């Protein structure tokens, strides 16, 4: 399929693919095995300007958008979702600054983010607040020129590795969801430390860690937007980034499909390559069709997001839910096509299957995405009367 990319989009695709094949594929199994953060790959991505794709030129980026970011994410995900998660979580953490930052905040943080010098993380989830994000208990109390943060964030991607954290905390717990605010917190701030590092089923090259705020004093200039806007910041950020999770789904599905086809062509049973059996061909046909459909949806939604449209909640939820369900199915079927070999760590598809599972969970579970789509359908219907 040709999606009529511009020259520049093709350049991103080509370079991201080169990085994935030359720098990621050779080490992905080892990173997974050792649960190691891909420092060297992050450096390569930085040197290649990959962190600047979606950041405006005036802050040292390339001034492109969601589609270009999705192209890069897809190519990296085709090789390793652990690596692409570390890369994509950086964008997730950056959107609050990009969307809600003051000129001053943007000038202060975006250039280092664009150059890849400083990595970013986004911190919303807590032990008692997953899908129900409004249940967060981390507080931020105004004290003169500072906010004092107290509480613990859980399962934060890039925790400990990132230098910059966008954190959602309650400035006014009595107001519920309207009492949250968003802050930029720098690593090294007094009272800010890192806790438990999770051991995971998949995406083991990415770090998932606790953030602990213990009377952490954050300068008031680091408030993003206004007090009380915390959930708006979080929701707009997730609306923006979700299509990228869809792109991760497309990438890992594509990777698994290619492995399955390669294997099925050379594995001989009953005197024939197994790809000659119609049952296998039909599985591959469905895998390829679903992957292409997911890709088409992700690109369309990314273009819609880039158009500046306001009502992106439903389409980005659709792209996320569809592409990640496809990723789960295609990676599982890739293991099936490859039989026992697919189940072994010698081949990359068992990792892809373990990795793909996270896509249905983070940045809002696929149940929650369906809730979002459902609610939008109801609103739309009500508007029509």
């Amino acid at each position, binding site marked *: 399929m040709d999606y009529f990319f511009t020259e520049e989009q093709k350049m991103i695709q080509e*370079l991201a693919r*080169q*990085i994935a094949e030359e720098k990621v594929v050779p080490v992905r199994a080892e990173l997974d095995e050792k649960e190691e953060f891909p420092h060297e790959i992050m450096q390569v991505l930085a*040197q290649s*300007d*990959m962190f600047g794709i979606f950041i405006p030129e005036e802050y040292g980026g*390339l001034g492109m958008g969601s589609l270009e970011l999705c192209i890069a994410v897809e190519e990296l995900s085709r090789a390793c979702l652990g690596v692409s998660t570390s890369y994509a979580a950086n964008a997730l953490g950056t959107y609050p600054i990009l969307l809600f930052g003051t000129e001053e905040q943007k000038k202060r943080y975006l250039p280092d983010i664009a150059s890849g010098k400083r990595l970013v993380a986004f911190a919303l989830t807590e032990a008692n607040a997953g899908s129900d994000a409004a249940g967060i208990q981390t507080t931020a109390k105004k004290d003169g020129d500072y906010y004092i943060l107290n509480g613990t964030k859980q399962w934060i991607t890039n925790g400990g590795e990132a230098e910059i954290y966008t954190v959602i905390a309650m400035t006014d717990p009595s107001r519920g969801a309207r009492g949250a605010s968003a802050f930029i917190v720098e690593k090294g701030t007094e009272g800010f430390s890192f806790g438990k590092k999770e051991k995971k089923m998949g995406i083991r090259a990415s770090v998932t860690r606790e953030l602990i705020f213990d009377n952490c004093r954050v300068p008031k200039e680091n408030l993003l937007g206004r007090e009380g806007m915390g959930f708006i910041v979080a929701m707009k950020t997730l609306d923006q980034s979700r299509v990228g999770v869809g792109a991760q789904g497309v990438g890992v599905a594509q990777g698994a499909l290619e492995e399955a086809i390669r294997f099925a062509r050379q594995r001989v049973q009953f005197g024939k390559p197994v790809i000659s059996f119609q049952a296998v061909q039909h599985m591959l046909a469905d895998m390829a069709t679903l992957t292409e459909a997911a890709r088409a949806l992700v690109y369309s939604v990314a273009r819609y997001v880039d158009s500046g449209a306001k009502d992106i909640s439903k389409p980005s939820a659709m792209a996320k839910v569809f592409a990640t369900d496809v990723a789960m199915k295609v990676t599982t079927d890739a293991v099936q096509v490859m039989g026992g070999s697919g189940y072994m760590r010698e081949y990359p598809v068992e990792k892809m299957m373990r990795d793909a599972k996270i896509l249905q969970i983070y940045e809002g579970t696929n149940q929650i995405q369906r809730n979002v789509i459902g609610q939008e359908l109801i609103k739309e219907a009500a508007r029509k009367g």
Partner: protein
Amino acid sequence: MKIVVCIKQVPDTAEVRINPETNTLVRDGVPSIINPYDLHALEAALQIKEKIGGTVTAITMGPPQAEDALREAIAMGVDDAVLLTDRAFAGSDTWATAYTLARAVSRIGYDLILCGKQAIDGDTAQVGPEMAEFLDIPHIAYVKAIDDINDRVIRVKRMMEEGYDVVEADLPVLLTVVKEINEPRLPSLKGKMRAKKAEIRRLGFKDLETDEHLVGLQGSPTQVKNIFAPEMKKDRKVLKGTPEEVVEQLITVLKEMKCL
């Protein structure tokens, strides 16, 4: 510091195919790349620039399409690029190539010239050192590390069969580098975008102000008469047994072959 890197565009294949009738490389359908050793030379140049400042110019002699190799070099970060191309240069052997490149770099100006240790399609490892001779400057071949460099002096490690030499030279100097020297960087997006638009300077025969009989086929004292892969001899024999028995057998065999 003005650094010039000489690069060559080569076919991207470990097995270069040869047209048996013309004894020339078959380039059709084979994608072209920058000679892998030259990528290390480019990386070394960029690292020196990052460390002590200066400019990096990439130069290649080749057909017009060799411009692609120069654009790749720009995408990696070199400041500008020169394509040395002219019908008059066709058929150059290593002598004529080195002479032509030497004329060109003299025009461009240089403090330091970097080359890969050899090109994978010819494997002669001659052009770099020959250039230095034409320019009448020192050269250090097979450099595996640059330990120190300033405006006047460079100190490097030269790879030897066992171990290495530490060599110091006054600038200007020409180095040829081996793979051990560094890990070449990938291009960057900004570099790729710049490369797309960049203007590539072209130099031809006239620009070099030299004699026709010194370049191209005329200027080449050597000519390739025939290229062939060495024939594989099939008659092999494996001697088996204890070391003592094998030695006995070997002596017998060597005597039979009249080697002893």
